[in-house]
């Protein structure tokens, strides 16, 4: 119920083609999209979420073009987490997470006990239930990310698209979130755009993007993928396989 495929995806922003004929597929598990700045990673994620119009190609969820889905229908099956954005308004944590039920309740439905239970579970999973009555703008960046992740979980969507969820977080938070992704990926399709290469290499699969085109896609321990990765970063880093894990070494000396 959670196969996301793109076929010859083309996206233009401000008249410039940002994604060129991107064909890739995402299956249950954790896939990390990596690549240099300006590669179009966030744009790809937003196209997958159906948030931007396409200049060509299609995005299919389990064979069905997402453009044919209603907004609510799509929201029930694909959830998207923004990069950290400033938050306005006076919502509490619980009210924010409850917004995750919007795809199911619509504008008019009232939350039932089942909805409240789902909200509780989502908050427990991301360990933010203790602050459920605090306001969003009182929390730190890391805490807020956890709340937003809880909101995404509350939608019960089988596909989670996460745009740089660990940026601006310190290592303990990054590690905690990465552990959570692995846990969620067991039963869902998790796709995250990550800048942090060492963290990304913990994902099951990686997709390497450069200048709007796919350079490589493969498992995290695939040497061909490592080669493509170092090439896409202009050999600024070297990737070595050390035992079960790949290690990223920045190349400071020439």
């Amino acid at each position, binding site marked *: 119920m959670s196969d996301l495929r793109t076929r010859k995806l083309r996206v233009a922003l401000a008249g410039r083609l940002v994604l060129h004929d991107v064909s890739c597929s995402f299956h249950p598990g954790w896939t990390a999209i990596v690549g240099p700045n300006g590669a179009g990673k966030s744009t790809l994620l937003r196209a997958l979420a159906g948030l931007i119009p396409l200049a060509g190609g299609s995005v299919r969820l389990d064979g069905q073009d997402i453009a044919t889905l209603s907004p609510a229908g799509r*929201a029930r099956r694909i959830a998207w987490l*923004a990069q950290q*954005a400033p*938050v306005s308004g006076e919502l509490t944590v619980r*009210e924010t997470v409850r917004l995750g039920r*919007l795809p199911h309740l619509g*504008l008019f439905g009232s939350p039932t006990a089942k909805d409240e239970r789902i909200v509780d579970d989502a908050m427990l999973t991301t360990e933010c239930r203790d602050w459920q009555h605090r306001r969003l703008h009182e929390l730190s960046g890391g805490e807020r990310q956890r709340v937003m992740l809880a909101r995404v979980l509350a939608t019960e969507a089988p596909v989670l698209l996460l745009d740089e969820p660990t940026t601006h977080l310190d290592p303990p938070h990054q590690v905690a979130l990465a*552990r959570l992704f692995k846990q969620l990926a067991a039963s869902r399709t998790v796709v995250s755009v990550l800048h942090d290469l060492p963290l990304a290499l913990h994902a099951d699969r990686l997709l390497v993007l450069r200048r709007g085109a796919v350079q490589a896609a493969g498992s995290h321990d695939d040497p061909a993928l490592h080669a493509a990765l170092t090439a896409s970063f202009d050999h600024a880093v070297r990737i070595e396989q050390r035992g079960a894990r790949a290690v990223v070494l920045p190349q400071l000396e020439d």
Partner: protein
Amino acid sequence: MSALPVVDAASDTAGTTAAFALTDAARRRRLAIALVVAAVLLIAAGLMVGSQGWSWSAFRADLADTQAGLILGEIRLPRTVGALMVGGLLGLSGAVAQGLFRNPLADPYLLGSAAGASFAVVLVLTAGSMSGHAIGFATAAWLARFGLVAAAFAGALAGVLLTLALARGAQEGVRLLLAGVVVGVVLGAASDLFTTVSPEALRGKQVFMLGSTGFLGWASVTMLGAGLALALPLGMRLSRALDALSLGDDSAASLGLDLPRIRMALVVLLAMCTGLAVSQSGLVAFVGLVAPHLVRRCAPAPHAYTLAASAGAGGVLLLAADVLARGLIAPQELPVGVLTALLGGGYLLWLLHRRRVA
């Protein structure tokens, strides 16, 4: 998930979060009660204050007067209730505008409704004063029958339509705001052009710009009431969308909201409420801006509560200004817009002062 680090040592315990929850609900309840009580008291004050100011003996005399039905029933009561309703519409629009644009400085006049209404008023007044000279009597008579009220309403809607056309739909917030500013400036210049030709239009426009609750009768109250009865439920229905919008446009869209349609619905709601309020009582400043701030300060809540409470706070604010306008220098009257600016502006200043101290 015990591997997650403890975020901060001051993490709330279950007891404290429960306390927070209680505080929130209690604050909302307290604000609601305060607004209702204030409204009741102000309605009573509105019935008492007339062209003789605050005088208990004068009020008793009025009650005994044969003219009581006229003075109290036809003049003071509809004016009081009308002021409450106009304030309610403005407060509601202000809350919608601030949620739609995610900007605490937004007011309901942003999308060209004020400029459109005042332009229409100037147009009708100029035509009236030039009847027989530049335009035919028949046209002038038709325009006179149309009336200033209808003209202001139509003008407000036309102003918003113009803004929507300029921004090509309600897709982007920033574009909409810019278009609103442009429309405001252009229509303002057009108004000025007409007022140079007709001093009568200039006088009428100045009266309109300051706002006035002086001529609210039962006909006005009926229309305002109908408008409020339609607008409040619609606003409540759209309140969850405003909550989602506070997370950001893309996040709101990813939650399944049809953003273009919802934004259009919000803009239409804004236009209708503002148009109705402005057509009945002119451009009253500050009510739409301050009412949501007051509510957020006293009882922060999701938009479902904030919209309704802002309507209440706006009504109370405008009615208080109206009562003061009537009572301070009776039988003369201060322009109600001056008092809303004083009350509203004063409150904002106090807020700023508090923030600096705290």
